[in-house]
């Protein structure tokens, strides 16, 4: 029984595991690696966006600086041109060479400044024209007007003074001023725009930085939750299940789900729980069987004790009477008869116990000899009714011979048991009928009584060892072994035993044995001739 359970368990384990592997390819390991990769990608993405933002910011800042540089250079240039203009005009009017110093300085500084402006404006393709225009105007003023003016002022100061008054000076000065104004206002507008753009870029970079931080934090949090759900949660469930199991709830089963490692763990847990349950059930059954066997044993001890004590009481009692008193011959013979009967009762009891033990150990050995059941029934009926005068006997033997092959002593034991039961379980004066016949290769014997019968509810247990029904209450002696032995013996002969009975109406016990083939090959050949 234990082996069968063990095999089933092994089977369950080997079957469930490959299926589980197929169902859960995504292992906990791959999940953790995957989640880590996703987190790393997210962080890298956020950093890339941040880098772009920082680059944007640097670019915008550089543009702003250049715009400011352009404006500053242009302003310097404007001042130099103004120096050129005022100093030139002052020298032309006054003729004082000292007043020409700023003019000289401006002339020296101008080419450098112009080059710087041109360099600064090199990248601004759409502004090249206006720069070129401005530079052309300055150079033209310097070369075509201012330098000739100073020459004239040196050579002919009065001519220079008239020259000064000419509209040409005013026009050129006006033109340059306008050009500067236009250029500066455009550059100023561009610088303002660049500054605003740089500020926007800076605040956008800040926003991207904060958003990246939040996104990274959120990813880290999701990763944590994910790990908790896929590892901590199942582990928690297994732990709870194990606690319930430990507390004795062997019906505890876990949901087989989640990543591979966890589902394998829960499946193994379930197999363990069910094997524990089965083992406990097996133990409970064995325990029950042990208890039942223990109960039977103590019942047996009680029965043996009672069945031994009762005949011993009479044997010892009457022996004592015979030994200690003077009794007449008639009484003496009567007492010895009682002692003899009780000693036989003891002897039969011991024989029955040994037989049961032998049968339990599978050692019932049968002789195989040709027996005539008709003769056996006659003999046993005569024996029994020699001892018992209280019952009437009717012997109904249809065949002269009922040959069977078997063990004569054992079959005699069966018949004697059925006959003595018929007497024991029926009231004095009752009729006991014994019937024997051979039909279709089967020898059938019936023993019918008019006794107490067997209640329906007790009938299924009538062949059970030590089962005596309500015999103890009725005061009917016996060991509860007779019918058990009868059945074993009849079945060992290849026959059957059975009964029909109704309470208070009596019982009919029957046995059927295979008829023996006679020398003529037909058990009823004699009968027919």
């Amino acid at each position, binding site marked *: 029984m234990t082996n069968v359970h063990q095999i089933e368990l092994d089977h369950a384990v080997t079957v469930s595991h490959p299926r589980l592997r197929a169902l859960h390819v995504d292992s906990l390991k791959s999940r953790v690696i995957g989640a880590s990769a996703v987190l790393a990608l997210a962080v890298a993405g956020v950093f890339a966006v941040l880098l772009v933002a920082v680059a944007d910011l640097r670019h915008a800042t550089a543009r702003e600086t250049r715009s400011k540089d352009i404006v500053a250079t242009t302003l310097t240039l404007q001042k130099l041109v103004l120096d050129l203009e005022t100093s030139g005009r002052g020298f032309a009017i006054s003729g004082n060479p000292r007043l020409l110093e700023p003019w000289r300085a401006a002339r020296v500084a101008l080419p450098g400044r112009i080059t710087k402006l041109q360099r600064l404006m090199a990248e601004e393709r759409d502004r090249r024209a206006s720069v070129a225009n401005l530079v052309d105007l300055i150079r033209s003023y310097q070369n075509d007007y201012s330098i000739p003016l100073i020459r004239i002022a040196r050579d002919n100061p009065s001519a220079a003074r008239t020259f000064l008054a000419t509209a040409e000076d005013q026009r050129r000065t006006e033109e340059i001023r306008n050009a500067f104004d236009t250029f500066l206002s455009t550059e100023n507008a561009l610088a303002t725009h660049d500054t605003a753009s740089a500020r926007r870029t800076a605040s956008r970079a800040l926003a991207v930085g904060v958003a990246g931080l939040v996104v990274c934090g959120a990813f880290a949090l999701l990763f944590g939750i994910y790990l908790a759900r896929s590892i901590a949660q199942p582990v928690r469930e297994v732990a709870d299940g194990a606690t319930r199991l430990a507390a004795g709830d062997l019906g505890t089963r876990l949901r087989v789900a989640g990543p591979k490692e966890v589902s394998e763990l829960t499946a193994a847990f379930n197999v363990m729980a069910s094997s524990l349950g089965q083992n406990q059930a097996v133990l409970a059954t064995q325990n029950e069987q042990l208890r039942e066997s223990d109960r039977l044993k103590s019942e047996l001890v*009680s029965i043996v004790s*009672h069945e031994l004590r009762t005949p011993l009481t009479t044997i010892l*009692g009457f022996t004592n009477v015979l030994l200690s008193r003077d009794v007449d011959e008639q009484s003496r013979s009567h007492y010895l008869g009682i002692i003899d009967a009780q000693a036989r009762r003891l002897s039969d009891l011991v024989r029955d116990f040994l037989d049961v033990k032998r049968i339990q150990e599978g050692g019932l050995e049968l002789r195989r000899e040709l027996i005539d059941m008709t003769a056996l029934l006659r003999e046993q009926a005569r024996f029994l009714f020699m001892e018992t005068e209280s019952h009437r006997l009717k012997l109904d033997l249809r065949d002269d011979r009922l040959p069977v092959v078997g063990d004569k002593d054992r079959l005699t034991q069966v018949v004697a048991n059925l006959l003595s039961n018929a007497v024991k379980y029926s009231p004095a004066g009752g009729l006991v009928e014994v019937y024997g016949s051979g039909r279709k290769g089967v020898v059938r014997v019936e023993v019918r009584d008019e006794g107490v019968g067997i209640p329906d509810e007790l009938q299924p247990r009538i062949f059970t060892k030590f089962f005596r029904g309500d015999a103890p209450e009725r005061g009917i002696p016996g060991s509860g072994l007779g019918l058990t032995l009868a059945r074993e013996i009849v079945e060992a002969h290849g026959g059957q035993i059975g009964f029909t009975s109704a309470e208070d109406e009596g019982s009919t016990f029957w046995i059927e044995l295979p008829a023996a083939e006679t020398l003529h090959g037909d058990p009823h050949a004699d009968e027919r001739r």
Partner: protein
Amino acid sequence: MQPDNEAVSPYCPGGAAGNLSRKGVLGSGRSRERTQTKTILICDDEPSVRELLRIVLGAEYEIDEASDGSEALDLVRELEPDLVVLDVMMPGRSGLDVLAEMRADPALAGIPVIVITAWDHVQPDVLAAGADRFFLKPFEAEELKAAVAELLEEA
């Protein structure tokens, strides 16, 4: 078998002895008073045990027999014996039932009861039910006689 002789005669074998003795008691209250013989009711379903008890006690006491619990109760009420020797395992009503009913009936509660049984495990129940002595089968005839004498003397 003459009733007058019975009180002093040794046991007489024969299946009819019980019936004769009972008739003797019922029909000869006079002889009982005269001889002052105490009466004992023996109750056991085994005829051989009843016969043995009759041999052991019959020499000194007048014996009545019952073969089951119901008969025993009927006879106890009818005859009011001086002592009852009771088996436990009997058809119908058990010896314990008989004992319990006797102890519950004020008219019978005072009658001493000796229980003799082959069931050794019932001793506590038997004594709790009010038995005066407990004997396990097989019993010693002399011990039983001594117990009977002692109980009848007390009574």
